[in-house]
């Protein structure tokens, strides 16, 4: 089949190459630097680190070595906690911005709420380290006010990792949930009120169910971005417990073991894909 113009007209013979000339650079780039690396990673994951012959041990190690398995469990736990806490914090916040803040201040309020979103990953995590350090701001405030006598161990814990993540994803989810609430037509609320529902019932039976698909999309985005992030757990969690991205980077950094790192990356991607397929049913509702 030959390409045609978007006006339905057939192209002159000389013009038939043009459409392909336009899209080929982008397609070529994607094939060469995204698809091909992925294939290389797949092949690498099936070769032995020593010797280079075909092997499945890179994958079987994941299931037999308890510390690798534990990294996945840690990753899933942290991601689940982060996703739930972020949604619970962001929803009321987005609701307040959309419903309680006067219309003309809303843009500014929202812009302010997501400003730190644009600090770089590394800097943001470092900033939390400052806040949570042994002699950081929070510990000084706590000991200074006499609430605790000994500084708390806040940095280099799972709590620190979760805090750093929640900080980022509250901003992301506030954006998506806010957009969702604003898209909701006011006539739904009027209809509910006309039928005698109070504000609480209107919220529970009308607003919440209608924004649920948006929440699901935001939560899924949180899951994907959170489970693949290396920086936040590495800077804030320390090496007390490993998450999957840290485990992957460790194979490259310390041992130069690309095959194992590739296999672990592919397993991580498989988990994300499974999560996507499991949620696909709810994620699709949005398009309807």
């Amino acid at each position, binding site marked *: 089949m030959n*390409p045609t*113009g*978007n*006006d*339905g007209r057939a192209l002159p013979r000389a013009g038939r190459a*043009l*459409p*392909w000339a*336009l*899209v080929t*650079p*982008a397609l070529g*780039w*994607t094939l060469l*630097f*995204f698809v091909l*690396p992925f294939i*290389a*990673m797949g092949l*690498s994951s099936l070769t032995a680190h020593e010797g280079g012959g075909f092997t499945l041990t890179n994958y079987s190690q994941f299931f037999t070595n308890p510390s690798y398995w534990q990294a996945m469990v840690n990753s899933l736990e942290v991601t689940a906690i982060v996703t739930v806490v972020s949604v619970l*914090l962001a929803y*009321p*916040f987005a609701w*307040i*911005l959309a419903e*309680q*803040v006067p219309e003309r201040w809303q843009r500014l309020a929202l812009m302010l709420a997501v*400003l*730190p979103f*644009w*600090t*770089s*990953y*590394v*800097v*943001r995590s*470092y*900033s939390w*380290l*400052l*806040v949570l350090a042994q002699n*950081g*701001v929070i510990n*000084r405030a706590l000991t200074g006010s006499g609430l605790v006598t000994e500084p708390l161990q806040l940095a280099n814990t799972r709590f620190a990792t979760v805090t750093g993540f929640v*900080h980022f994803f*509250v901003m992301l989810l506030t954006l998506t949930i806010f957009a969702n609430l604003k898209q909701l037509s006011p006539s739904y609320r009027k209809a509910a009120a006309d039928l005698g529902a109070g504000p609480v019932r209107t919220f529970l039976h009308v607003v919440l169910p209608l924004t649920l698909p948006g929440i699901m999309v935001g939560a899924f985005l949180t899951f994907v*971005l959170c*489970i*693949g*992030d*290396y*920086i936040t757990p590495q800077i804030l969690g320390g090496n007390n417990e490993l998450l999957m*991205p840290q485990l992957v*980077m460790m194979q*490259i950094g310390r041992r130069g073991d*690309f095959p194992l*790192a*590739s296999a672990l990356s592919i397993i*991580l*991607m498989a988990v994300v894909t499974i999560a996507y397929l499991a949620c696909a049913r709810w994620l699709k509702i949005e398009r309807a």
Partner: protein
Amino acid sequence: MRQFVRVASWVYALAVYGFIFLPVVVLVLFSLQSTSFPIPPFTGPSLRWYEAVLSDVRLTSALVNSLLVAALSSATAVTLGFLSAWGFARFVLPGSGLLRGLITLPLTVSYLIIGMGLLVLFNWAGVPKSLLAAGIGHVVINLPLCFAIIYSQMGDHQINIERAARDLGAPEWKVLLLITVPVMAPAIFAGFFLSMTFSWDEFVISFLLTRFDTTLPVEIWNLLRSGLNPKTNAVGSLVFAVSIVLVVLFELTLLRRKPA
């Protein structure tokens, strides 16, 4: 009841704002510290750590590298994204949906995995670690974004002006340069600035694909090994400032496109 909701809303919103701004305020405040530890009590204000940053050749050259990689990779991404978006919008191509899906596919994969794949490929092909390698990776993550932004903004309105120009006898290249590019300028700039922001902040791909000459986030990462240090605060505050400028430019260019 209504009064209670109001008060509770205020308290809650202020608490969340506090949580969101706490690390940023601490970062910027202690970048002005005059002593050597970025922890309370505050001893500033002093600009000595900013001076320390600006006289550190490793940091300043990393900053230049970062800007260079961001500008060049974003220009490449936006050019490829624009040409393909126009190709798909202007012509009906066989398998168009599938091909568009392929271009946007990298959006669904984490940076770590994109970086890993390129590392393995370059390692096999004997391509040395370099800023160019990192730049290639940045185009991979930003091309789908530019494509999606520009493609979504190509509507009937623009197709009609193009058709008018073509009916008046303009050859295809003239339509592209004199009609499509100016009409699409806001989307093109928006794609460019958003790409700049992401490339400027990107860590893991640069970390995996560069060695001696590297980008600013990787250099900041190296600074972190020395523990808490007001110099890190200062350079972090500078990075934040640049990001804010890019985001504001992005907002302005996208918002300027108010349909008349």
